[in-house]
């Protein structure tokens, strides 16, 4: 933590010194706060792709700045304050753990517009946005269930927050539908990005018999571990991770932020921006499914694509009853679908998953 404090302070200082406050008729300045390095090949990489899409779309009308590897917690407040002081008109904070700091800084800078990814607390000048990744996880869960031969699927989870729990549940439900014998092993890595630890977690799961690895961490290290183990497959997370095609990476969940960022920046320019919560999925194009490679049998690919289409059209909701909670209590009745409120605060496993969610 010490290192990161120093890093972010130094970077914030550099930012503050290097970029004098913008005058009125300057281009609109948009800041991005990233939780990992752009080169993580995953989560932060995709947000930066969104930022590049903004630059390309607006040209000289928008100037973007960003800060990488900003730790969640108090340091994020410092980074955002520096960004606001150096003239940013709008700030995208792209990790769940920035939530309280976003609200704190937003209260001090009422003229700056904030957008917080994957959070659930809004304010007058703070909107939240997220993607329905669980829709993508339903599709790869289906592939995982069909592809596993040991009937053991390993899942590298990051932190026990609703977003991650939702993903585990969605993947499990659809793996189970495809293969009633499937069993999930979940490892909580307590990090979004630590390639060495992610590789260790993947190896531990593979040693325990998992032959499909799902991940909710940001680096490509689990795919590297799957590759060196041989007969193990995995999926790209956040970005396509195409360098591991055709196997171990057999498909991927893609985060596509660019169109949303462009929309929201335009809204600020027009003065039509309003706080709110946006939650888009495959249908709106915020979540994509990367190419399903030839390592997946044609039949399974067709099933996965059909599932994707049904989700995109709204015909099918990944959380459709009958579903019970882990302890056997009924959650959704036959044909009932989960409401967004429950999904956003999800803190329980569905029936069939083993293990406990750490607090």
């Amino acid at each position, binding site marked *: 933590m010490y290192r990161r404090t120093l890093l972010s302070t130094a970077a914030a200082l550099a930012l503050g010194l290097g970029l004098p406050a913008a005058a009125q008729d300057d281009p609109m300045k948009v800041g991005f706060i990233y939780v990992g390095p752009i080169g993580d090949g995953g989560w932060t990489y995709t947000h930066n792709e969104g930022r590049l899409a903004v630059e390309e779309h607006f040209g000289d009308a928008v100037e973007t700045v960003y800060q990488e590897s900003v730790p969640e917690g108090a340091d994020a407040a410092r980074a955002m304050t520096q960004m606001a002081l150096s003239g940013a008109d709008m700030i995208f904070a792209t990790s769940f753990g920035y939530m309280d700091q976003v609200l704190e800084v937003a209260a001090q800078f009422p003229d700056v517009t904030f957008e917080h990814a994957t959070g659930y607390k809004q304010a007058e000048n703070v909107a939240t946005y997220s993607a329905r990744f669980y829709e993508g996880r339903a599709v790869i869960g289906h592939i995982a269930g069909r592809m596993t031969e040991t009937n053991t699927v390993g899942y590298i989870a990051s932190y026990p927050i609703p977003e991650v729990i939702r993903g585990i549940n969605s993947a499990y439900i659809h793996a189970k539908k495809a293969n009633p014998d499937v069993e999930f092993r979940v490892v909580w890595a307590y990090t979004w990005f630590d390639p060495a630890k992610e590789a260790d977690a993947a190896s*531990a799961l593979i040693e325990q018999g998992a032959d499909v690895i799902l991940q909710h961490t940001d680096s490509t290290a689990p795919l590297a571990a799957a590759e060196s183990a041989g007969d193990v497959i995995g999926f790209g997370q956040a970005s396509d991770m195409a360098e591991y095609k055709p196997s171990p990476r057999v498909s991927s969940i893609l985060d596509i932020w660019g169109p949303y960022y462009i929309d929201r920046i335009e809204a600020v320019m027009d003065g039509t921006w309003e706080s709110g919560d946006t939650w888009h999925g495959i249908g709106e194009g915020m979540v994509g499914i990367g190419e399903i490679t030839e390592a997946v049998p044609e039949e399974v690919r067709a099933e996965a694509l059909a599932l994707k289409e049904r989700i995109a059209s709204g015909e099918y909701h990944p959380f459709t009853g009958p579903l019970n909670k882990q302890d056997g209590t009924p959650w959704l009745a036959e044909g009932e679908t989960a409401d967004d409120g429950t999904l956003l605060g999800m803190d329980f496993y569905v029936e069939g998953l083993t293990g406990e969610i750490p607090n």
Partner: protein
Amino acid sequence: MDLATIQPAILIASLMVSSTPILLAALGEMVVERAGVLNLGVEGMMITGAVSGFAVAINSGSPALGFLGAAAAGAALSLAFAVLTQFLLSNHVATGLALTLAGLGLSALVGKPYEGMKAPTLPKLDLGPLAEIPFLGRVLFSHDVMVYASLALVAAVWAVLRFTRAGLILRAVGESAEAAHALGYDVVRVRVLAILFGGALAGLGGAYISLVRVPQWTEGMTAGAGWIALAIVVFASWRAGWVLVGAYLFGGVTVLQLNLQAAGAAVPVALLSAAPYLVTILVLVIISARGLQGAPAALGRSFHASG
């Protein structure tokens, strides 16, 4: 819960692999600190080693050359630290931190073209019948050469510091630079050599992450390992044997808790993750209660031969 699926032999073998990077880096830093220099740039030197080793291994096709390149790159970066602190007498702490920032930035820049590439990895040594021994074979005789090299280095550093004249001089410089100077030893030269050694080992540790443990290049991939190495030096109270214990303990607890989770054991994850830090605090309390400080007396102080 299915603990029977955890095999102790595999567990110990994988903890040795996952501890090797911090072991190498901590050992190097221990030598640096015994010479009275506090180099907080371990993280920066590790990541520089990681990217250089990866790049050299890809371009040459040889992981061995990769490790050599990593050691050279780590030492080269530490040379900057040596020049600043030993000749220009800059503050050790500030310079070390700057070194980390520089290393992280430099490695991101150099590593850009190597993202997503695959390097040749280090093969396991073929020790023939030894590897067939039940349990011990898997634990001790199934590793790549760097694991053995790191253990040999621990023994070598221990022996040199304890039994040789060179080791005595190094310790003298670290305890009292003035006294060593008065005896006619070249304090600055000894310190520069120690810094270069520390840089080379940190580079090797970094390359072990990018070439063996992960193996790939990803920006920022050392993810704080250098800081753990620094903590281990304190934990070990500047002794080679304890550096080994500390590194294996840190690596071991990490691997153990991941394996327990994968096996479906109901373990309090947060508690296990905090365990190495709790043990460190405990050890520090015991050390200070026994009145043994362990830290070299001249640690972090600049020396200039005036007059």
